[in-house]
């Protein structure tokens, strides 16, 4: 059974189409990432899948069931960290785990779960005295109490320091190794690249790109480029003396040359040398998921859900 199937899901708040006809599936054992700027509709989508909000249109199946109607049975089978997880102030992580185990009527060893999420040291600290990272880890611990097959993690690492983020990544990798299906949202593209098998980038309620990060980069990113640190004059010189396409970024003083083939780099460098002008560092690079993300979400979504990328004059300029 496919754990999550979504087709043409819609949710409106008044005139606002928070989720506007999105479709995707998440396969068993997969870590699926939902990316997108603030207000893109990630939390709305996730909470509809959790059965916390009612959809306005489309079809969804979570573990084969309708989460709004069959929520009570479904909740026993999945685990959740909500965005900005909070808990009872005067309760410790250890007590919280025991409480959840009682509610779910399962036998667990609280210390084992605490160890799994690297929270043994603060097991007996009241929730209101925990740091942001420890609070998130508590949320993660609670989502594991009922040994779920499916996990919804809404921004599990937002606001955490790099160490705490890596600690949570380790936990998520551990869960993936155990074959759990995970759907997570994040604003960190490195996180998505590190953890997710596939990602979907959402913007204004639409999915604007979906696939592995390599697929998305290949589809929406530019190819390899040569970047030369130098003056605008040099850029003009190279353009005049080669067949190459040349762009100049004034802010960074970088000449950028898309490479149709690797040998193009030699021609560009030869022209630069020939000019007798000064030039600095050189490098070749490709669009990262970051670059593609910025391109995709600063573009506008037209009525067909296609994005049109606006040419941002200040960023790069044809010479």
């Amino acid at each position, binding site marked *: 059974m496919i754990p999550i199937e979504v087709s043409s899901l819609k949710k409106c708040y008044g005139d606002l189409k928070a989720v506007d006809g999105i479709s995707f599936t998440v396969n068993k054992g997969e870590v699926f990432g939902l990316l997108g700027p603030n207000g893109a509709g990630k939390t709305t989508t996730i*909470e509809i899948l959790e059965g916390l909000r009612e959809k306005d249109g489309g079809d969804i199946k979570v573990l084969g069931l309708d989460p709004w109607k069959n929520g009570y049975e479904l909740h026993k089978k999945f685990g959740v960290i909500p965005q900005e997880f909070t808990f009872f102030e005067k309760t410790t992580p250890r007590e919280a785990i025991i409480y959840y185990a009682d509610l779910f009527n399962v036998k667990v060893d609280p210390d084992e779960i605490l160890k799994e999420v690297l929270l043994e040291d603060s097991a007996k600290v009241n929730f209101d005295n925990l740091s942001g990272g420890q609070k998130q880890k508590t949320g993660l611990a609670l989502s594991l109490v009922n040994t779920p097959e499916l996990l919804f993690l809404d921004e599990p690492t937002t606001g955490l320091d790099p160490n705490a983020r890596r600690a949570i990544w380790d936990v998520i990798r551990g869960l993936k190794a155990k074959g759990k299906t995970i759907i997570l949202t994040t604003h960190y593209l490195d996180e998505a690249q590190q953890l997710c098998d596939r990602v979907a980038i959402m913007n204004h309620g639409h999915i604007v790109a979906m696939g592995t990060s390599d697929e998305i980069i290949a589809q929406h990113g530019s190819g390899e480029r040569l970047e030369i640190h130098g003056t605008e004059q040099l850029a003009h010189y190279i353009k005049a003396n080669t067949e190459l396409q040349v762009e100049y970024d004034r802010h960074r003083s970088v000449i950028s040359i898309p490479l149709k083939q690797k040998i193009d780099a030699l021609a560009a460098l030869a022209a630069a040398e020939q000019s007798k002008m000064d030039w600095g560092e050189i490098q070749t690079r490709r669009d990262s998921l970051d670059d593609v993300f910025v391109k995709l979400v600063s573009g506008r979504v037209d009525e067909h859900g296609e994005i049109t990328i606006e040419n941002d004059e200040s960023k790069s300029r044809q010479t």
Partner: protein
Amino acid sequence: MVSGKRIFSDFKVFSRGYLRNKFGLFFGLIFPVILILIFGAIFSGNSSGTINVYTQNQDTGPFAAPQMDVASQFLNALNSSTTIKVITVDVSENFSKYLADHSSSDGIIIPENFSANYLAGHPVNLTVYGNPASSSSGIVSGTVNGYANYFNLNYFQRKYNDTTPAIIGITSATVNTQQTKYIDFLIPGLIGFSILVSPMFSLVNISSEYKKTKLFKQLSLTPLTKMEWLASKVLWYIVLTIASFLLMVGVGIFAFGAHVALTVWLIPFLVLGPMLFASLGMLVGTVTKNPETAGVIGNIVTFPMMFLAGTFFPISIMPTYLQSIAHVLPLFYIVEGLNNVMVYANYMGAIIDLAVVAVITAVIFVLAVRLFKWRED
């Protein structure tokens, strides 16, 4: 469907959290006791002052000259004493009933033709009502005796220069009305206050905060049901109310010598009361959009009850329009019921109050559970 085990685990977590929060403990347990101490101290000064004595003067004359009205002179003399304040009761009143209605046991009846008989030297009897168990009755009968002796002396000194026979005699009448002191009535009132305040404020706050911080959504993803959640809160506030009740009664009795009856009849009030106000708080938190609005609405609902339901002073001293307002406040029936049980031993009255409270509680509880939403829709 409802699981006792889940209610109990939620109860455990909630009560532990409550006990770790000094603020809640202060308002739940210590604050009502402080109120008893303050109000008890303020009003206990009263009891060392003059005693109100209800007096029915049946000797209405007519008198040939004002000096012939010995009855009035006798009462004026009594009134000028430091211990007694004479309060006149109209002759048309049924005296015993009047005493009972005014929760008093101290009274004097002056018979018809008292003055004429006194002046003629015929023996006359005053009837002094009193409760042998009450210290004030001892003071009253002592004072009346003293003045009767004085009047007797006066008569014989004037007439014969002799002191032997007595003209004014005294007949005692026993009254069983327990004289209620302010503290006796303050205890049920403040118990009502604590039944209202702790569960109400707490649930308004919790239910609106949990909604805002999405804790309810979080709980909705567990097998706990909203009914179980509310039940566990109600249970905790019943426990807290009973603890607070015992503390307040203890302080009232030991610090101020309060006379309150402790019977099983109190239990239904101590159970239904917290249930009613926890549910009402829940309802307020549920129907409002955010914690700020919830706080305001909560105060609007709570404050009139806090002062007008007979908590700090009996509603009988309030103007009638305020009394009619008091009758629509749920807390009024709890305080009245507690008074009926603890002070007046009026169980018929208590049953009626209990019935009213039970109906209101059932309605509010059902409404709260129905309208309260774990998740949004």
